């Protein structure tokens, strides 16, 4: 791979590079070294991210039959996706309902993770005074993120199932007569699992913004007579905004594209944007899958653009 980088960066220079170390280091120009250092990563993104994205867009305009891709221009991927949508107006067609469901899940998960993430980050940043405790408690929140998502999903089954801990507990205490059916394989369990899996992505950026807040600003607010709530709204939240926005972008893009959690926790019953793509791929309808990917990408991009207007992400990293 590095051979390629060399060739691309400076055609004809390779014979010289072998002797570069023996010679004076100044023989390698700084920009050449930069290419050498950053080139391999750039190549990986080019080969496995940027070019594939271009292929998604191109293939979304190809034709297909039951067996294969047909590389000829066609809008079938899109028309198949929106089949019957105009005839059904003003009712929403399946695809419309699916995207509405995705946005609904997305909004619920976003609101909950934001609330939970903010509280957890606030506690860690402002109430935990010792650095060791701060690190230990942050680590405690981070470790589950390093283990398999599927395991963390199925972990809810023994708790929420028909004979799970929650139901049997409620029945025993006499609060309900029959086990609740909506606990598992429902919108509720999907949202619960998504919150469980991804609050981490909200905690970390908000915490990072909060620890940078100068504590004397908060004291100043108190001295000036602000109540705790006023300080929160007028000092802490504006200063933590970059973290809030970055965390929100993470959570929203993850939930928009999720198909695994929604599949497993929804009992394969809930349709969402990512699920359509998976279904189309399984049916070998690649242009239709790609068309849906393009639509999903456009919506995600729109949300991110709106959010990044609020804050300059690059400056915050």
């Amino acid at each position, binding site marked *: 791979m590095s051979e390629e980088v060399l060739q691309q960066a400076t055609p004809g220079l390779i014979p010289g590079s072998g002797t570069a170390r023996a010679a004076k280091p100044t023989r390698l120009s700084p920009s050449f070294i930069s290419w050498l250092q950053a080139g391999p990563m750039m190549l990986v993104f080019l080969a496995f991210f940027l070019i594939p994205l271009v292929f998604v867009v191109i293939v979304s305009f190809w034709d297909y039959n039951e067996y294969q891709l047909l590389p000829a221009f066609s809008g079938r991927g899109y028309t198949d996706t929106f089949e019957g949508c105009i005839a059904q107006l003003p009712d929403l067609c399946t695809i419309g309902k699916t995207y509405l469901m995705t946005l609904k899940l997305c909004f619920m998960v976003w609101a909950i993770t934001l609330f939970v993430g903010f509280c957890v980050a606030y506690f860690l940043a402002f109430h935990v005074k010792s650095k060791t405790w701060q690190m230990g408690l942050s680590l405690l929140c981070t470790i589950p993120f390093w283990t*398999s998502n599927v395991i963390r999903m199925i972990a809810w089954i023994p708790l929420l199932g028909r004979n799970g801990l929650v139901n049997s507990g409620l029945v025993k205490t006499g609060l309900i007569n029959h086990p609740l059916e909506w606990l598992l394989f429902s919108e509720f369990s999907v949202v619960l699992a998504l919150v469980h899996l991804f*609050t981490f992505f909200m905690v970390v950026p908000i915490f990072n913004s909060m620890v940078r807040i100068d504590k004397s600003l908060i004291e100043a607010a108190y001295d000036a007579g602000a109540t705790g709530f006023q300080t929160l709204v007028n000092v802490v939240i504006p200063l933590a905004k970059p973290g809030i926005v970055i965390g929100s972008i993470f959570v929203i893009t993850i939930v928009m594209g999720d198909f695994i959690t929604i599949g497993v926790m929804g009992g394969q019953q809930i349709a969402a944007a990512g699920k359509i793509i998976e279904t189309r791929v399984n049916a070998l309808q*690649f242009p239709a899958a790609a068309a849906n990917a393009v639509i999903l990408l456009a919506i995600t991009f729109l949300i991110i653009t709106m959010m990044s207007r609020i804050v300059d992400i690059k400056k915050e990293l």
Partner: protein
Amino acid sequence: MKEGRPRSFYVLAIFFAAYVLFLYGPMIAIYVLSFQGPQGGLTFPMNGVSTFWIAKLFQGTGIVDLGAAFRRSLLLGIIVMIVTVVLSVAAGMAFRRKFKAQSILFYSAIASLIVPSIITSLGISLEFRIIDDLIKAHWNENFETSMGLLTSGLGAHLTWTLPFGLLIMFAIFNRFDPRLEEAARDLGATPWQTFRHVVLPIILPSVIGIGLFGFTLSWDELARSSQAIGAVNTLPLDLQGLTTTVTNPDIYALGTVISAVSFTVITLALGTIHMLNKRQAAKGSDAGKGLV
């Protein structure tokens, strides 16, 4: 602020404790349930205590060929870890001075992190399908596929681990004191010597952190593997397959085994980081010791 702990401290402390319970409670439940007796089911109460289900996994008589998937996931995880560490450190060094393509690389990394995984995965699978078609059409009619664990699969995992590696490198060099390198240069060290003997020992604990991210993110990766891995399955893919057909606790046993590997790697990495930090604190400074 006022003296003593404000009321909000106690409210938030309870909230935090509840959050930790929420994070760990369900996971602990399945770890416990994976030690059910042979007659055990999917829920509490436990029906006896044994290692029956875990042993069953390793006998290979279960639904999953655990051994093969385990070795594949492990191999891929280790390769992803090594590549992630090398490429992230190199690129991180590059970002310390201005270079032409730096904003392209930066935005690619960020985009790769936030474009939904299913889209990246689909794109890679389309790319390899098109490559396959080209090979079949022009060179070899009998060609099967170029997709696989170490081609499309490796690439898919790297699009997920490299952004994390790069961001960690940014964090490292944000608080790195460049005067240390100047000193090394003044003493006549070559750039390589400066890197090897000054920069690397200082950043090593965080570099191990990058390795930890690389391995565990790959080991548990699912969404990007789903379309891009080719014919074989990794462990998380097998696990996901089990979720639709599951009737007995072997799924929990599998979950416990996968988590055990994750936790072992996390512990090893954190232990090494801790040891390195301690050693740095003990030996790091030779101020006042002189040369003779």
